[in-house]
């Protein structure tokens, strides 16, 4: 369950607090999305997600699949001319979901052969970012 009893303003404040970012600072240049290695599969892409937040569509972004696709590669934050780090915003959005027991990773679905071959580091990072 998402915390839909809370007002949009409260949620936005929480996102800003958890991420340490100011949503309003983004001026939609698109640099973050241009550099994002997974933008081709993301919905919404980073600058769109921020725009939706600016317009108050918080729930839409919280429930979107795009926030879970971020690989935490830090390109968006590194290059943003306005000092906004979307990777941190995505982490805040995930954290709100995780704290409400919402997450996408289904352990049973992970391929057995993959488990034998992939480095531990991949699982530890994925479990931290995609489960509680």
């Amino acid at each position, binding site marked *: 369950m998402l915390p839909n009893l809370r007002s949009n303003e409260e949620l936005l404040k929480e996102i800003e607090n958890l991420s340490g970012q100011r949503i309003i600072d983004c001026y939609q240049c698109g640099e973050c999305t241009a550099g994002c*290695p997974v933008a081709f599969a993301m919905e919404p892409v980073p600058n769109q997600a921020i725009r939706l937040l600016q317009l108050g569509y918080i729930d839409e972004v919280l429930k979107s699949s795009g926030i879970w696709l971020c690989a935490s590669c830090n390109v968006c934050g590194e290059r943003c001319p306005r000092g906004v*780090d979307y990777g941190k915003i995505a*982490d805040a959005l995930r954290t709100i979901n995780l704290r409400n027991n919402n997450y996408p990773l289904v352990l049973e679905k992970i391929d057995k052969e993959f488990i034998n071959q992939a480095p531990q*580091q991949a699982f*530890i990072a994925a479990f931290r970012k995609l489960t509680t």
Partner: protein
Amino acid sequence: MITLAYYPGCTLYTKGKNLDIAARKSAELLGVELKELESWNCCGAIYSPVTDDIASQVAPIRNLIEAQKISRKLVTLCAACYNVLKRANRNLFLPENYQYRKRLLNYLEESYDGSTETIHYLEMLRDIVGFENLKTHVQKHLTSLRVAAYYGCLMVRPSEELMFDNPDNPTVMEEMFLALGASPVNYAFKTECCGGYIVVNQPEVAKRCAQTILENIANAGAECIATTCPLCQYSLDNQQKVMSKEYKLPVFYFTQLLALSIGISPELLNFDNHYIDPKPLLKEKGLLL
């Protein structure tokens, strides 16, 4: 012989052992004793930037405290460990994080003032061993080996926190390869993300990230790739299995090529433990019998 604290991290005893063994052997030959922390725990593998997430910072800070028993500098090899340990320390000791710091340090048995400096093995080679000195240790020049030095994300970004090298065009690994006589190639995507941990639940997306990089490296005329991270190595090597196009690009850890060049026995370097077999290339270059 200088002694430095060494942190292997969760993957280097098993799936990343090709990175670890070659690094320890090479350091020894180059006059550095890497002393593994007596008691260490996984750093968490990925940094948590969430401002109220104190729990995730306990593990990295514990390792930094442990390192103090050996030396002021702590050497890491895995790009992810480097990223997590260095950022955890830097951010905890920002003046504005005073309250946060106090709360976190309350969880720990020992006091800590933030003075452990995390360095990457490549920085150790550059600043402590020295590339000029490294040249004098070379037994087999990697002559004409066209290698793509691949950094990925975690070594270089966020640059403000890591201050490792230029975040778009780092060159320290190329400098090492030049010292070993190799010919590093210039290419565009040396700090592009391999897809990282999303390979766990979005393998198709991660595959495309890796393929973009491989395509770029192949077009730049490289014969092989060198990485600093077990997950990058896995993504670029093993995922060639599932790609529509055959690249046949061997993916080494930079330490394997270093070790080979300074005369460490190839038997110790696990060249069998790769998806794309690197032995034909090494034989062609006269680096392997």
